[in-house]
């Protein structure tokens, strides 16, 4: 089944909020409630047998704040499909898809660890990079690059790192590389 046919059959079966194409990549915007049904259909009927990645985006200052992105792939036909849905800050959780693709287990643990979104029905939702008891979610936009002090006795301590005029970031703009290049810039709190 080609990708176009797959998308047509998806659109016939589920309400799709939006469909975007960019450089040959197809993105379907769906709702949070349907992620499990759509993923199961994609795996069982459309041949998307491999989940490449799940990532999260923090659109800080917008509502809904978070966005989850699922990268589906078919090993047999080498087709890719991207699923997206938004998650509001008031209810920062989503249903797990780890029953469909076991690899989602660790992807979802990473998102929980770094972004603080929980996954309902996840069999083992622990932090995966930071340690148990670390109180922050470091990839959120309101978390400073330097970090915050914390202490879990006998496990780990953290301090804020000296940024010395930083953080050293690249500005998103169309200026030349010389103007955009990473240098010490104070960002407004």
């Amino acid at each position, binding site marked *: 089944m080609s990708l176009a046919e797959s998308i047509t059959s998806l659109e016939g079966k589920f309400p799709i909020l939006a469909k975007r194409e960019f450089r040959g990549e197809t993105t379907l915007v769906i709702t949070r409630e349907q992620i499990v049904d759509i993923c199961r259909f994609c795996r069982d009927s459309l041949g998307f047998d491999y989940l490449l990645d799940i990532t999260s985006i923090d659109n800080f200052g917008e509502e809904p704040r978070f966005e989850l992105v699922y990268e589906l792939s078919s090993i047999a036909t080498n087709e890719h499909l991207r699923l997206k849905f938004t998650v509001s800050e008031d209810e920062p959780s989503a249903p797990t898809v780890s029953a469909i693709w076991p690899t989602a287990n660790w992807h979802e643990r990473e998102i929980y660890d770094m972004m603080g979104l929980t996954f309902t029905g996840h069999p083992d939702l622990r932090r995966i990079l930071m340690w148990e008891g670390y109180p922050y979610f470091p990839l959120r936009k309101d978390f400073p690059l330097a970090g*915050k002090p914390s202490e879990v006795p006998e496990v780990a301590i953290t*301090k804020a790192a000296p940024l010395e005029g930083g953080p050293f970031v690249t500005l998103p703009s169309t200026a030349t590389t010389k103007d955009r290049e990473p240098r010490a810039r104070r960002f407004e709190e």
Partner: protein
Amino acid sequence: MAEALASYDSKIEGNIIFTRLDAAINWMRLNSLWPMPMGLACCAIELMAAGAARYDIARFGAEVMRFSPRQSDVMIVAGTVTYKMALAVKRIWDQMPEPKWCIAMGACASSGGMYRSYAVLQGIDQLLPVDVYISGCPPRPEALLEGLMKLQRKIAGEDSLYEQKRVLIESFS
């Protein structure tokens, strides 16, 4: 190094060497530094290169990489110390018997390096006393050997007997 610390004339003295006890102890220590290879990142690759045939850290008596802290004299912290790893490093350091020394190998172990971040300890010297810092990202094996020789020079000048056996010596008097 041996000439500077001890005088020896085989015709006159036979099997006897006259030297200071401090100098003899230091001479033995500095020529058999057993490292605890705390390899945490890419610096550990250079540490391995320093141990291999071309650079041959055995020339300086430090080839015996001990993976048990109880048998180690010098901890070579080679790599990025994350906060998650930091207290484990400290624990291994605490398990090493005195006298012990520490080499911070590379930018990360010395100061956090390029990782000005929430996840990285900004220098291992915040947790344990460092004797020698080695610059580089990662340092070449020659730099590690230079650091090791600096540490040997430092040990040669230490007041080993009195400082480290103070309680024992004071109990005699």
